[in-house]
Structures are given as C-alpha cells and as structure tokens.
C-alpha cells in the first residue's frame, strides 16, 4: 500500500535530476582534471618571468614570441606535419586490415581483433625501446640490409630522426585507427556491395562509390585519434626522435623544465590545445555529416 503511494509523491524536479546525477562523476572528473588545469595553464600563459621567477601579469608577449622564434614554430610545423603524415599512413595501412577483419575473417574475427589490441598490453616505453633495436645503426634492419648488400654503410636516418618518430607513431596508432574503421565497415551491409556490383559497378567503382563513403565515420574517428594524439605526442619523439629536430611537445617540456619559463611553455600548450580543438570541431562536423548519411 505505502509503496504505491510513494511513487506519485516524488517531485518532478527530483525525477528529472535523478538520471542526470549519474553524470556527476564524469562532470567532477572533467572539472578537476580538465577545466581547472586548463584554466591554470591559460592563467600562467599571460604571466611573465624575470630571473626564473613568475610574475603575475596580463600580457600576450608569450604568444607573440612563439611565432617570433623560428625554432618554436618550426617545431610546431614538424608536429603538424608528422601528425598529418602519421594519420594518412595509418589510414592507408588500417583500411585493408579493418576490411579483412570485418568482411573476410569469419570465425577468426575475434582472435584478430584481440591481436590488434594486444600491443596495448605492453608499456609504450618498452615498445618504443624495441624499435631502437630494430632501427639503430647496428639494429636488425641495417644488419639485414648490409648482409644482403642493399647498402654499404648503415642507414643512419632510420633512428633518431623524424623518420623514426613517424615509424614509431604509425606503429603505436595503427590499432587506434583499425578499431573505429572496423566498426564502420562492419556496418556496411554485404547487400549494398552486392547491389552496386549487380548494377554494373566494377569492384573499383564499388569501393569508391559505396565502401569508402560508408566507411567515412570510421575514417574520421580514426583520423582524430591519430592526429590529436600525434600532435601532442611526447614519449615517442623523445625516445626515437634524437633531439636534433624537436617536436612541439618536446619544446614545451623544455620551456617548463630546462628554461623554467612556465608562462612561455603554458602559452605553447594553449596554442596546441586550440589546434586540437580546431581539429575536433572540424571532425565533429564531418562525423555529423557522415553519420547522417549512414543512418538507415
């Protein structure tokens, strides 16, 4: 009896608030670990330093300095270039893998997906270290190339260069591209592909007319992962990049730790954040367009 009376007694506001309360941990998490730190970074970025001491101020000198110092905007350019190259390379490499797992693997699908994720079970530092063994002047690749007589001297550009950074990043991000692409391709009905072939589209045209456009949501999500992570990546360039040509994240770290110029580093971090947000905003637009078209 009393239970039956309890239900209508609940106030409408409370009823609306209850499901929203489930979001509370997320909201708190975002505030404590994202909004507040970003606000602090932004705050520091308009301060000044004098003799390694922070002086509260409100100046945009730090931002202007980023573009006035060639070393810095060159690092930024290298970061954007590397991230873009890694993104494109991952897309090209991930597509056949994702397509095979989604459409051709049959009962091996589960095992192959686990294999794609497996590298995540090992620390990134160890995985990057393993690449040093492969790419070094006396590493596996150079030894094999010299034994086969492909080169006389070891290829030194393989390690401690933007090339090795790119190789390391492609290796690290490939699973991040395969998974969303796999999800998108799984959603392409075999019947759509058959309908295209049946209507006299060659396999190549079927790919460009049906498979590729319907993979767009996965392509965009994968690209966001690769580009955004690649832009701010620190570990891989630090371990494989050699330190002659720095990426933006390394310059930021340098400002904070070596030069102790926190405002300058903070300003660079804000610039990086704005770039990431721009990439995200752009991709959201694409995703909305792509998903609007795939909803059947």
């Amino acid at each position, binding site marked *: 009896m009393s239970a039956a009376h309890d239900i209508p007694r609940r106030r409408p506001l409370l009823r609306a608030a209850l499901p929203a309360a489930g979001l509370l941990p997320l909201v708190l998490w975002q505030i404590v670990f994202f909004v507040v730190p970003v606000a602090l970074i932004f705050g520091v970025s308009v301060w000044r330093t004098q003799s390694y001491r922070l002086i509260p101020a409100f100046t945009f000198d730090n931002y202007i300095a980023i573009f006035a110092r060639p070393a810095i905007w060159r690092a930024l350019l290298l970061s954007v270039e590397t991230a873009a190259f890694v993104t494109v390379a991952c897309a090209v490499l991930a597509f056949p893998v994702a397509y095979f797992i989604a459409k051709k693997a049959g009962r091996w699908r589960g095992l192959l997906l686990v294999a794609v994720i497996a590298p995540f079970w090992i620390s990134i530092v160890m995985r990057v270290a393993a690449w040093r063994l492969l790419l070094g002047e006396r590493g596996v690749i150079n030894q094999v190339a010299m034994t086969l007589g492909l080169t006389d001297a070891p290829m030194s550009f393989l390690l401690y260069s933007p090339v090795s950074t790119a190789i390391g990043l492609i290796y690290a991000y490939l699973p991040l591209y395969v998974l969303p692409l796999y999800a998108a391709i799984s959603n392409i*009905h075999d*019947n*759509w592909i*058959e*309908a*295209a*072939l*049946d*209507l*006299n*589209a*060659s*396999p190549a*045209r*079927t790919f460009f*007319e*049906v498979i590729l*456009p*319907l993979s767009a949501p996965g392509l965009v999500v994968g690209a966001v992962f690769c580009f955004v992570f690649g832009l701010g990546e620190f570990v891989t360039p630090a371990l494989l990049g050699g330190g002659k040509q720095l990426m933006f994240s390394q310059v930021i770290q340098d400002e904070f730790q070596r030069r102790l110029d926190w405002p300058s580093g903070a300003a660079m971090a804000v610039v990086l954040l704005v770039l990431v947000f721009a990439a995200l905003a752009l991709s959201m637009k694409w995703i909305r367009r792509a998903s609007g*078209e*795939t*909803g*059947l």
Partner: protein
Amino acid sequence: MTERSPNAVELRAVSKVYGASAAVRDVSMEIARGAFVTILGPSGCGKSTLLRMISGFVTPSSGDVLIDGVSVLGAAPYERDTAMVFQDYALFPHRTVAQNLAFGLRMRRIAKDEIARRVEAMLELVNLRGFGDRRVSQMSGGQAQRVALGRALIVRPAVLLLDEPLGALDLKLRKQMQAELKTIHRDLGLTFVAVTHDQEEALTLSDRIAVMNGGALEQFDTPENLYRRPATRFVADFVGNANLFDARIGGGGRVAADSLPLTLDLSAAQRGGRGEGTRVALVVRPETIAVGAAAPAHHDCRVEARVDEIMFSGAVQQITGHLPDGTRLTAHQSAALPAPERGATAIFSWPGQSVWLVDG
C-alpha cells in the same frame, strides 16, 4: 546478325554443391523473353541459389547459364545484364532516392541529361514523384520497396530478378504492390524472375511457376496447370490445399483408395498412362468437396465422415472431418451454404472427374 534467342534466361542442368550437400541439383529451365516467372518453394529449397546463379553471385558447380542466348558462366555480376531487387531492398543509405535510381545508369556511363530524364520518368512510374531528394532512411517500407524496384528497372535489364520482393511488407501493402508489379511488368515488357515462398503470391503474379523442393525442380508450368495437374505429390501439397489419399491402380483403370471406402473409374488422361498396380495418390482439392446430407447429383465420390472443426473465414468456411479409420478430410465451401454441426456425421462428396493422380 545472329538470330536472337527467344529465351531471356536458360538454365542447362545447373547444380550447386556445397561440400557434401547439393543446394541445387540438375535444374534445367527456359524462361521466355517478357515472361514473369516465379521460383517457388519452402525455405532452403535452393530457389535463392538459383536466382543468384542468374545474377552471377553464385557460380554453378556444373551446368550452364545463358542470358539472351549467350553463356554468362565467365561473366562477373557487374558484367551481366541483370538487375536485382533485394529482399531487404539494399538501398544505398548515403544516397538520395534519385541518386539511388541513377546509380545503375551512371555505372553504365549514360549521359547526364538522359539520366536526369530517366530518373524523373522512373519516379513517376513507381509513384514517387517529388521524393527524389529524400534520404532513403526517410522512406516507409512500401516506398523503399518502390525505390528498390525502380533502381533495378531503370537500367532496363535483360532480366529483372526479385528476391522475395514483397516479403517485408504487411498484407494490405503486399496486395497493392502485387497489382503494381503486374502492371509494370505488362507495361514495360521486361523479363521478371522472382523468388518467393508465398504460393499465393506466385499464383497471382506469374505466367509460369517453377516449384522447387530439396534443390530439385519439381515442376515448371503455368499456375493453372500446377494447380489442376500437379506433377508430383509435393507440388499438389505445396500449391494450394489438397487432400491426398494413397491409392493403387487396379484392373480396367479402376483406382482403389487405401483408406477410403472408394473406387473410382478414371479416364486414361487422369491416369496419365500409369499402368495397373502403380502406387498413386489421389489429389482432391478442398473446394471441390461439398459437405451436407444431400450431395449434388454429379458428386459421384461420397464418404461419410465425422465433422471435427468448422472455421469461418469470410467468404469461405473450412470444414475438417475424419473417417472412421482416422483419415482426415478438409473441405472449403461457400459460407452462404448451411454449415454441418460439429461432432455430427456428414456426407463429404466430390465429382470423380475433378480428381487428379500423382505418383504415390
């Protein structure tokens, strides 16, 4: 110029074997140009495999497939002049209705202005004028089915293939689309080959029906012949309702039913040349049976049975009964006639000349 084959499609002894089991066995069929042929059978009978052999998605293990008199065994689906209406329509979700319709024409490299003209005409034909810019996700089931039909029709294929085309529609819409399909077929004069498990749909739509069972072709004939002169016990049972009574041909053309107190004098045509001693089954259609105390004069076959159930379904009432030995009987008669009483004994009667024989 070589003489054009009168057949749009010809299957010559095609089989498809998957491992140890045969999905299609030794099927031969000639489909005349401009015909509406339906392949009918229960699920798993191989009818879809047969359709996919024509479209090119299944390669026969043996035998030959000809389209317009030319073997297409070596041709991929995109090299064949066929177009399929898929069971779930398979409309491209990233394209508008008009773009879906235009797809096949674009792949065939038709000029842009002609594509536009033909798309407009097709929208008109399938009653979707003004829907060209809609997304396919905004279409109802019936509308999506029209788009699928239009997308295949627009290329004017040598053969239009329909895989359970109306299976996803509700009854009323299905009836309406059946009528439209028939009209479109007549107006365009294209060859239609449809697959269905719905015998009523097959009977309504087709010029000829191929009944398949267990991968084999049981009979390929007009709807009327299938119904009146079924070739096999399976066809008699599958197409329409039938009372089947096991029997044996005796001397002098007399046929004695095993379980009915009944002996029939059948004409040679009805016996179909079967000799004395042959095991057969009598096919008695429910609508030829009258139930009531006084049987019509020309109903020379009469048995007394107990009435088990009377089901009223509008114009017709279905009366089921059983003989003393348990043999069941079904009769359909006009609901305007008086119904017998349940549990009572009634005379079930039919004219002997309406009986058909199939091999037992």
